[in-house]
């Protein structure tokens, strides 16, 4: 027993000390990567803001005493921040948002650290999820991390390819606290975000609900072409080409409408969710903000990669999708005829 | 801000006072209590009986819906007739818990016209209290029960009245000796009109005047007493024998000493039982014994009191009669129709009641008091019908006093088409036909000095626990609407709130 404890205690340390590529290969199921926490730690954080702010401030009025003291304090802080102990490894709660990992950074350790493996109480499970479930611990289902990783990579691929083909990707996360991650992912993937309630009928009754929302015509390089503004009137509202849903349980309506409109969906499927509601499930914990932020970030990064690829091709004058022609734009959106043709017919 | 609870209710010593007044119930066993105990043991609640076992809920006992019906509570016997009214009208003149104020002057022959005492609190002389009670000078709600002994503020108006009484009596040189002064006392609510009358009565008693009072004018016109027409009068006049009898009893009780010293000097053929040479007190007592002759007796008494010399047939030596004080409270009740009905079921005008008519006629020019005296009629604001004619009459009186001629357009006249009572207007017309006869005296709030002494009086009686300074006096003065004494008393009875101290006294 003592031996076992010793092994348990020392073995962990030993492993931590000697982390060779071979060992890491053993831990992660992907190509050799640096230790899981490193990319997060080593990546240069976005430049601290105060510095910039000080420069930006335009002294409008002669500085008040309070203002002067604040300025002094800010300068001090800036000067002395770098001095003293330097914290190499420090947890930054916003790092997942500011610098989300790429799909290639997915490791089981990262997933584990982000609590993606924690399912729900066994009594609440959906048996359809049995294939993702690793086991039970303390009455809670544990999701198999290697499945999660594989499905997440697949979803990332889907997002990347859709982005590369100029599809509209909608990131939807309507739970409290998911706003930032959803907006960030949409920003990375140049997609669209939804962090408040999905208005039922936005797809099935789009003209009523999204009819007033503006659209624009862009060229292959995503530059707006204002000449076609007049042609956008009376056009049916747009529909997303891919929907990423962080909480499918609450967004049944959204997923249903997507199903009706043949829009593929990606969803985080917890052990109590119905995996058949989405096209590409990602078995994972959807109650942990860290887990959802991680998944949204990874998918956002994937979208970013896809968009970059598309832009690179566009620069060469190639597109991976069939661009809308100017002529088609000029056609009447309802009859599908040229603007003047109907009158001509009548005259004939 | 202001505390929302009505402190007035909490503070009012009503409950304590009434309990102390009631005699200890005979059923409660008298238990000897320690001498230092402030509350006697017999007032303690009787020991509680053990609760009935049936009605008491036991722990874990099921309670059925069919509970035993409560026995009908047997009604407590109602209090005997007149007791509640007596309680209501009870006047408590002393509060043994209040502190006694040392060095307080009494109202006396010397002090009543002493100008240096103006603005002080003066006690009423103890030996006159019975007489004052007899003429019903005290009213139940005047908070006499707050203080150790009854006392009043010696206001400017009091001092002036004291001087006037002195002059009429002839103690002080002046042209007023033996004169008759008639005044109507008005003023806002709580301004001390009734207490003014009380002070006048006290002074009159001190000066050994004859005091005749009507403490509540309402009782004579509200249909409370019996009335009967006097035959042969046109228009028919009505006499109220019981009310007259009560009046006579008041006069006899209050002026026993004076009346007993005076002998009749006139012939009274109407009064059969009257022996020659009897005193005026005996004369008045005739009316007490038989209410039917009360009114003739009163008339006889009145002529006796106003006589200046003996009638030819009387051999007794004529004794000079003292001046008279006639007071009335609640004048407005007498300025309209009464609730009495004539034989044809028309309402009787209050001026057709001889009692009322007699006293109102004193206001007019012709009727005077033979030996001089003071006629003080006060209006009331606590119980008064709104009376347009009286208002106009008082306005006219005020205008006359300011020197406005009746012919001038500014002279107040009843509005056209208003139902001003012509008889009332005639009365005022008659009373004002000569200048300077009927006066209007308007009482208002106390001055600040008087307020200060009143507040100090409260503080020294132990009712106000605060330092009396200009601040406090000014505050109370403003809160009481400019020193209206009744309001001042209400304000002072409230417990004081701690006031925030102003850090920055001046800007």
């Amino acid at each position: 027993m003592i031996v076992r404890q010793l092994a348990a205690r020392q073995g962990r340390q030993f492993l931590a000390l000697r982390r060779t590529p071979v060992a890491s290969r053993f831990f992660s199921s992907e190509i050799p990567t640096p230790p899981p926490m490193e990319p997060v730690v080593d990546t240069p954080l976005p430049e601290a803001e105060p510095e910039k702010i000080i420069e930006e401030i335009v002294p409008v009025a002669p500085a008040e005493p309070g203002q002067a003291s604040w300025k002094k304090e800010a300068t001090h802080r800036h000067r002395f921040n770098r001095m003293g102990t330097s914290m190499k490894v420090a947890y930054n709660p916003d790092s997942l948002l500011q610098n989300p990992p790429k799909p290639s950074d997915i490791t089981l350790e990262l997933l584990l650290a982000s609590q993606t493996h924690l399912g729900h109480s066994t009594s609440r499970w959906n048996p359809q999820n049995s294939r993702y479930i690793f086991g039970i611990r303390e009455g809670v289902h544990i999701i198999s991390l290697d499945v999660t990783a594989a499905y997440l990579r697949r979803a990332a691929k889907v997002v990347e390819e859709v982005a590369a083909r100029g599809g509209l990707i909608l990131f939807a996360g309507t739970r409290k606290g998911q706003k930032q991650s959803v907006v960030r992912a949409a920003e990375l993937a140049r997609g669209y975000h939804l962090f408040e309630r999905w208005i039922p009928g936005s797809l099935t009754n789009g003209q009523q609900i999204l009819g007033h929302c503006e659209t624009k015509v862009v060229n292959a390089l995503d530059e707006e072409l204002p000449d076609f503004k007049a042609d956008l009137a009376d056009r049916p509202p747009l529909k997303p080409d891919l929907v990423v849903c962080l909480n499918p349980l609450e967004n049944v309506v959204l997923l249903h409408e997507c199903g009706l409109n043949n829009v593929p969906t990606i969803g985080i499927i917890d052990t109590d969710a119905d995996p058949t509601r989405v096209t590409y499930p990602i078995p994972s914990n959807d109650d942990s903000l860290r887990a959802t932020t991680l998944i949204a970030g990874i998918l956002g990064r994937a979208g970013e990669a896809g968009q970059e690829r598309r832009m690179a091709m566009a620069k060469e004058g190639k597109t991976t999708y069939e661009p809308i022609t100017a002529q088609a734009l000029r056609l009447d959106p309802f009859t599908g005829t040229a603007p003047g043709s109907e009158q001509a017919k009548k005259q004939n | 801000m202001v505390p929302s609870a009505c402190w007035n209710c909490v503070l009012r010593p009503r409950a304590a006072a009434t309990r102390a007044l009631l005699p200890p119930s005979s059923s409660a066993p008298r238990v000897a209590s320690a001498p230092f105990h402030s509350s006697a043991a017999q007032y303690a609640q009787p020991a509680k009986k053990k609760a009935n076992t049936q009605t008491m809920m036991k722990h874990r006992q099921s309670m059925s819906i069919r509970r035993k019906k409560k026995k009908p509570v047997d009604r407590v016997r109602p209090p005997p007739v007149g007791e509640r009214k007596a309680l209501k009208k009870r006047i408590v003149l002393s509060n043994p818990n209040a502190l006694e104020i040392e060095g307080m002057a009494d109202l006396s022959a010397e002090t009543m016209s002493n100008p240096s005492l103006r603005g002080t609190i003066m006690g009423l002389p103890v030996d006159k209290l019975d007489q004052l009670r007899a003429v019903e000078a005290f009213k139940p709600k005047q908070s006499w029960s707050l203080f150790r002994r009854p006392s009043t503020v010696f206001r400017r108006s009091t001092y002036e009245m004291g001087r006037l009484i002195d002059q009429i009596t002839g103690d002080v040189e002046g042209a007023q000796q033996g004169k008759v002064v008639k005044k109507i006392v008005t003023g806002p609510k709580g301004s001390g009109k009734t207490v003014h009358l009380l002070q006048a009565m006290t002074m009159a008693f001190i000066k050994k005047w004859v005091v005749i009072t009507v403490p509540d004018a309402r009782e004579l016109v509200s249909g409370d007493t019996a009335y009967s027409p006097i035959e042969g009068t046109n228009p028919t006049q009505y006499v109220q024998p019981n009310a007259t009898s009560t009046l006579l009893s008041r006069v006899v009780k209050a002026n026993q000493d004076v009346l007993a010293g005076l002998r009749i000097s006139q012939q009274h053929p109407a009064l059969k039982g009257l022996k020659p040479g009897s005193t005026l007190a005996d004369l008045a007592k005739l009316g007490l014994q038989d209410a039917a002759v009360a009114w003739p007796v009163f008339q006889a008494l009145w002529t006796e009191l106003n006589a200046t010399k003996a009638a030819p047939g009387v051999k007794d030596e004529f004794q000079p009669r003292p001046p008279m004080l006639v007071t009335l409270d609640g004048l407005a009740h007498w300025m309209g129709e009464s609730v009495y009905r004539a034989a044809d079921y028309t309402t009787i005008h209050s001026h057709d009641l001889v009692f009322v008519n007699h006293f109102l006629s004193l206001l007019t020019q012709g009727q005077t008091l033979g030996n001089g005296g003071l006629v003080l009629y006060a209006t009331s604001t606590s119980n008064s019908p709104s009376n347009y004619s009286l208002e106009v009459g008082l306005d006219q009186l005020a205008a006359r006093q300011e020197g406005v001629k009746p012919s001038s357009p500014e002279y107040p006249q009843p509005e056209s088409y208003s139902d001003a009572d012509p008889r009332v207007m005639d009365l005022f017309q008659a009373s004002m036909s000569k200048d300077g006869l009927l006066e209007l005296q308007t009482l208002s709030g106390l001055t600040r000095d008087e307020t200060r002494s009143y507040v100090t009086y409260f503080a020294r009686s132990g009712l106000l626990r605060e330092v009396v300074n200009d601040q406090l006096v000014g505050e109370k003065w403003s809160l009481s609407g400019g020193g209206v004494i009744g309001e001042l008393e209400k304000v002072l009875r409230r417990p004081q709130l701690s006031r925030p101290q102003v850090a920055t006294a001046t800007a």
Partner: protein
Amino acid sequence: MAGHRSNCIAQAMQLLRLPSSTSRVTVSRAPSHLRPPRTQTRTYATSEEAVSPAAPEIDFSTSSSRSPARIVPASPAYFSGSPRFIDHVLKLEKLQTKYSGLPTMEASEAPRMAWFKLAQFRDFVGEPVPTKKYKSLVKILQRLNRIQPAAVPAEVRSTLESFLRPGNPYAQQLAPPTVDESGRARGRGKRKESSAVVHLVEGEGEILVNGRSLVDVFKRVHDRESALWALRCTQRLDKYNAWINVRGGGVTGQAEAITLATARALLVHEPALKPVLRKAGVISVDARRVERKKPGHVKARKMPTWVKR
């Protein structure tokens, strides 16, 4: 299950193989498996399938930068139904986090800004914005407005200005009330349905309400005290005379309207008393009014008794 898993993996593998194939082929069309069959109306890209052209193609300039490729939403919040509003909110939130370190001042000292009223804001964004959401937006605006004036970045200033309603109602400052030539200070106050106007002059504490004495108007001592509380709590009762006009409402309302009016008039005479009066609670306006009765209710909120059958 095992079979399914293998199928799944096969699908995944298929997907994984995709990028290599697409990167090599330079076709300008979507791969066949991604492209839905003809019968479907939707395609991956938003471009619409060209129906047989009615007229020969207009020859735009050949450069791809001028030829249209896609129709896309103008805002990333397109699918939320109120994109412009959400864009504004996100922009403001971004500013707030960016400049959260700047020195701020008390909300009471911040310059008073006339933000859009709700109806105006709805016109401004052209979307039906709920009240609650607009309130949260105004909250962010207020926070940004609290940055000390000397430190406000130009970006923030311009953003804030875009939310101001046209014509600044707070631009013209009201002249501070003063004591007039005869030494009177005027104050007005309201409470419940009553409104009072008080003229305060230096004096000995004489008070007239509607030309009558205070005692006549307020029978209760409590009302009298609350009417004069402003003077009483500052111990100024014997230093001022007041001429009061009050109308409307009941006795309590009138008394407390007088309190407020007196306090305001007193402030004109002695502005240094403000903290004392504030503490005494006499210059706080009580804006509560009687709630109206509603149809179907017995009173404002009371419902008729519910009876079964």
